[in-house]
């Protein structure tokens, strides 16, 4: 670079950077005033929040729902005894504290108010009895009624179990369970203190009183194990945590916000106004334009960053001159990096609004990084100190707490600067591309860019693939959402009703041991197995399936852009045209489904796979039988609607018919494959059945018939022939069926039911051949032969 060019480079950088600090600076379009007002409000709220940490300027607790009492369930004699013994200490403390509610009479206490697990002596114990240890519904009710923050549950015979253990130490420790309010972090820490001090004190007391040995050994297992608090000498844990979490986060937000409002305006704003062309035509190199803007954004962002940081450095607790330099270095490096990001986004975009929108993900990602930093602040890995952004966050937090890792400071600064430099270089290169420099009318620019990319460029293809991929992903999640949401709603009341039964406490306690995915699945199936015999569950599921159908229709109305619900039903393969035809199709479907399942059973019987042991329905199973019968109708209809009536036309909007049938069938198979006893053959069979149903849908043009087939298939399978339905066992069947001793799982499908076996494969294949022949014969559908 010649001397003259170097001079003009420096002058260009200076002029552009200085432009940021002139009155009416920023040579670009500006964000509206409302943005400014919002940021002022944002800062004010933050300031008040920060203030409340140091000075209790507002007696929050007088207006909060703060509670101190404790519910004790199945309290053993020894615990009641201990409570009485401790009462005199609580009374003393309450007397010392003074008034609990009067701010004026007692402001000294109010100003330094801290939550305490026994509320400075105010805690009362409420004794209750309940044999079910996991009945959190009742416990929650008791806590609300009695204004308690904690429930302590003892098992029945606690004292006896502890006494027994003194004789034989190999006996299991009895459990003490704790339930607590989670609506405030205070309750969590109060609960922890209660366990650490009060419950452990109780166990020591019990030992002393009984004259047992091992006075410091806990005699029962407290399910809510106490966590270790790292003990700093002379450090205040609250202020320490604040320095590691809130203060760096605040500084990050300030820098990000300032850099965004300053940085995204510049080049994008100049392009929007059309003033950028003028700057490009001056004899200033592009690198100087970038450098000048980078310098301007950085300097202007550093002003608020410093304004927000300095007050914290003045606080005596954080005052530590040696670490000031580290904090300032971190600030400068971080600001440079974020400024380079905003600059790149500004170069890429044509308008201020689009640049700000594009910056939003960066903003959120960096905030997410901060949040992960806060979450891991005590047990972070050392290498985080060397990473960009992480290094700054932890570095600022550490420096506030008087620690500076010089190696971390150096490495993270260098790596961040390097990253920022690369980003800046990219921005500079982009400025040589006329796509990012010419300020044509944005609409025209977009059109040209679209036209420029042509039809077969990689970008275009990638666009299409991601678009289709997203569509498929979304549509894959839809059945999951529908089935999951409504089944969950139906299951909740049932689960709660079981929670309240003492006899299931053991089962629920066993859940603690569940660790692997297989175990989770097995437990789930076990639970579902219990529920399938519960009339409440079956009735609720019936309602849930109807709700699913309604939800799917409402969704379809929007998706298929139908004006009326009649049109929507028609679009989903449920036309209400001729009632007589619907009835005919439905009855035909019921018969076909029954015939198919019957032939499966005949095959199984003839090959000697199953034994039918006569009539299996008892009188007291009748209610379950009839409710179960009722459930299969909406069940079949909802699955047909979701996987056929909705999914096939939905995919047809974008893809060929063959793909729609294939994909919906795969989805159908995948959703059922999650059930118990799943075998690879089961997914093949379910796929074949789905294809068969889809072909029938294409043949008849409606899903009335397949709804009926689906219902008849499941109904006859479970409640007539007494076999498993896709891994779920029906509890009341007409015929009492069992696998014979020499049954082959390959043919019968084992615990998944016949749908996992070869018999179903055979029947489905035969039916499919018949339907395909019918399809080919019908002239109407010959043009759809690719389906």
């Amino acid at each position, binding site marked *: 670079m010649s001397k003259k060019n170097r001079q003009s480079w420096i002058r260009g950088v200076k002029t552009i950077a200085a432009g940021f600090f002139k009155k009416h600076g920023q040579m670009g379009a500006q964000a509206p005033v409302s943005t400014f007002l919002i940021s002022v409000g944002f800062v004010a709220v933050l300031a008040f929040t920060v203030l409340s940490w140091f000075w209790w300027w507002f007696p929050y607790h007088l207006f909060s729902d703060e509670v101190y009492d404790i519910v004790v369930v199945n309290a053993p004699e020894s615990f009641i005894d201990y409570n009485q013994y401790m009462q005199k200490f609580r009374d003393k403390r309450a007397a010392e504290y003074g008034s609990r509610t009067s701010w004026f009479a007692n402001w000294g206490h109010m100003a330094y108010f801290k939550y305490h697990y026994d509320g400075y002596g105010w805690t009362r114990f409420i004794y209750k009895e309940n044999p079910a240890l996991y009945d959190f519904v009742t416990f929650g009710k008791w806590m609300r009624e009695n204004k308690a923050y904690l429930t302590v549950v003892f098992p029945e015979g606690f004292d006896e179990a502890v006494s027994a253990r003194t004789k034989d130490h190999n006996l299991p420790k009895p459990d003490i369970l704790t339930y607590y309010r989670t609506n405030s972090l205070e309750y969590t820490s109060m609960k922890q203190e209660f366990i650490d001090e009060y419950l452990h004190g109780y166990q020591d007391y019990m030992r002393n009183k009984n004259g047992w040995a091992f006075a410091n050994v806990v005699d029962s297992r407290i399910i809510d194990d106490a966590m270790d608090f790292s003990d700093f000498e002379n450090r205040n844990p609250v202020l320490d945590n604040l320095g590691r979490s809130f203060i760096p986060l605040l500084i990050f937000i300030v820098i990000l916000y300032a850099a965004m409002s300053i940085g995204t305006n510049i080049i994008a704003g100049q392009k929007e106004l059309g003033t950028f062309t003028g700057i490009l035509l001056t*004899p200033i190199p592009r690198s100087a334009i970038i450098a000048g803007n980078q310098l301007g954004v950085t300097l202007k962002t550093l002003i608020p960053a410093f304004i927000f940081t300095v007050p914290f450095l003045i606080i005596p607790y954080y005052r530590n001159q040696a670490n000031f330099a580290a904090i300032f270095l971190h600030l400068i490096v971080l600001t440079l990096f974020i400024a380079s990001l905003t600059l790149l986004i500004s170069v890429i975009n044509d308008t201020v609004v689009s640049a700000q929108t594009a910056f939003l993900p960066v903003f959120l990602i960096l905030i997410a990084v901060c949040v992960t930093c806060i979450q891991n602040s005590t047990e972070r890995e050392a290498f985080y100190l060397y990473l960009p952004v992480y290094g700054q966050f932890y570095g600022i937090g550490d420096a506030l707490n008087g620690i500076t890792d010089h190696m971390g400071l150096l490495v993270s600064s260098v790596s961040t600067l390097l990253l920022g430099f690369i980003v800046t270089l990219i921005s500079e290169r982009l400025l040589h591309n006329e796509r990012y420099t010419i300020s044509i009318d944005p609409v025209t620019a977009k059109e040209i860019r679209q036209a420029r990319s*042509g039809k077969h460029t990689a970008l275009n293809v990638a666009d299409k693939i991601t678009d289709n991929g997203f569509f498929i992903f979304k549509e894959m999640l839809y059945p999951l959402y529908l089935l999951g949401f409504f089944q969950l709603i139906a299951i909740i009341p049932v689960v709660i009703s079981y929670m309240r039964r003492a006899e299931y406490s053991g089962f629920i306690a066993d859940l603690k041991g569940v660790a692997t995915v297989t175990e989770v699945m097995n437990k789930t199936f076990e639970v579902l197995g219990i529920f399938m015999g519960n009339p409440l569950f079956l009735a609720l599921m019936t309602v849930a399936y109807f709700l699913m159908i309604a939800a799917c229709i409402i969704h379809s109305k929007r998706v298929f852009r139908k004006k009326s619900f009649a049109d929507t039903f028609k679009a989903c393969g449920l036309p209400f045209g001729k009632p007589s035809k619907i009835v005919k199709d439905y009855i035909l479907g019921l018969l076909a489904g029954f015939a198919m399942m019957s032939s499966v059973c005949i095959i199984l019987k003839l090959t000697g796979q199953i034994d039918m042991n006569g009539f299996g329905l008892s009188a007291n199973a009748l209610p379950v039988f009839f409710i179960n019968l009722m459930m299969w109708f909406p069940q079949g209809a909802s699955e047909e609607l979701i996987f056929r009536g909705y999914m096939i036309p939905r995919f047809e909007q974008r893809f060929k018919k063959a793909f729609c049938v294939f994909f919906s069938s795969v989805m159908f198979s995948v959703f059922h494959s999650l059930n118990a006893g799943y075998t690879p053959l089961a997914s093949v069979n379910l796929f074949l059945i789905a294809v068969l149903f889809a072909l029938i849908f294409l043949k008849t043009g409606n899903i009335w018939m397949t709804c009926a087939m689906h219902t008849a298939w499941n109904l006859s399978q479970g409640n007539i022939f007494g076999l498993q339905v896709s891994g779920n066992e029906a509890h009341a069947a007409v015929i009492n069926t069992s696998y014979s001793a020499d049954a082959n799982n390959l043919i019968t499908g084992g615990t998944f039911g016949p749908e996992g076996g070869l018999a179903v494969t055979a029947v489905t294949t035969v039916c499919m051949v018949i339907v395909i022949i019918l399809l080919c014969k019908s002239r109407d559908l010959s043009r759809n032969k690719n389906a």
Partner: protein
Amino acid sequence: MIKVKDIHKSYTKETETIKGVSFEISKGKIFGLLGPNGAGKTTLMQIIATLMKPTSGTIEIAGLDPAKDLLEIHRLIGFLTTEIKLDPVSTPDRLFDFFANLYDIPKGEIKARKEKAFDRFGITPFAGRRISELSTGMKQKISIAISLLHEPPIIIFDEPTNGLDILTSRQVTDYLKELRQEGRCIVLSTHIFSVAEELCDEVAILVDGMIVAQGSVEELIKMSGEKDFEDAFFKIYVENHKEER
């Protein structure tokens, strides 16, 4: 001063906006590019101003190649666009200083040049006002003053009188004549015949990205055999424009 040789420019693979344009412009002349909307005038002007690179072909400005001596060329050219583009929250005064600094004008000289330019166009009373408060004509005059503050020998002017009232456009055309007298080389694009007729020493008629006729206004009228320039233009246009399928 400007040599353009066989310039092609295409935004898409299928269509070419500029299909092989060549011309030369010498000192002290006004060269006009005349053509209907969409003929490629603005694209061609932006290529000459080095804002865009041609797909193929070469440009030489005062003997310099834009690919090598871009910044040197920027000192020699002044570019004005159709739309008035000034920072609305700034003032003429501050904008002039800003650009003077970017053009590396010596500090002592900036004030003298500013006074001269602002007096010439009557901007001085408005020098401290916000741009957004000023009239369209005033904005165009400020734009001209700032674009030419480095006194470039080559001036590229895209649609100089577009959207201006008669008074202001008269001021602009007078100023262009003055600049020609000073020996500057001026390229302007327009779709207004009177401007071309009044100002241009040489006119090139651009139709669908190609120069279909070139010469002085009189030559073009003679060539077409029509009475006046407007009729001549229409005849040339109809002969050369292919209807799009």
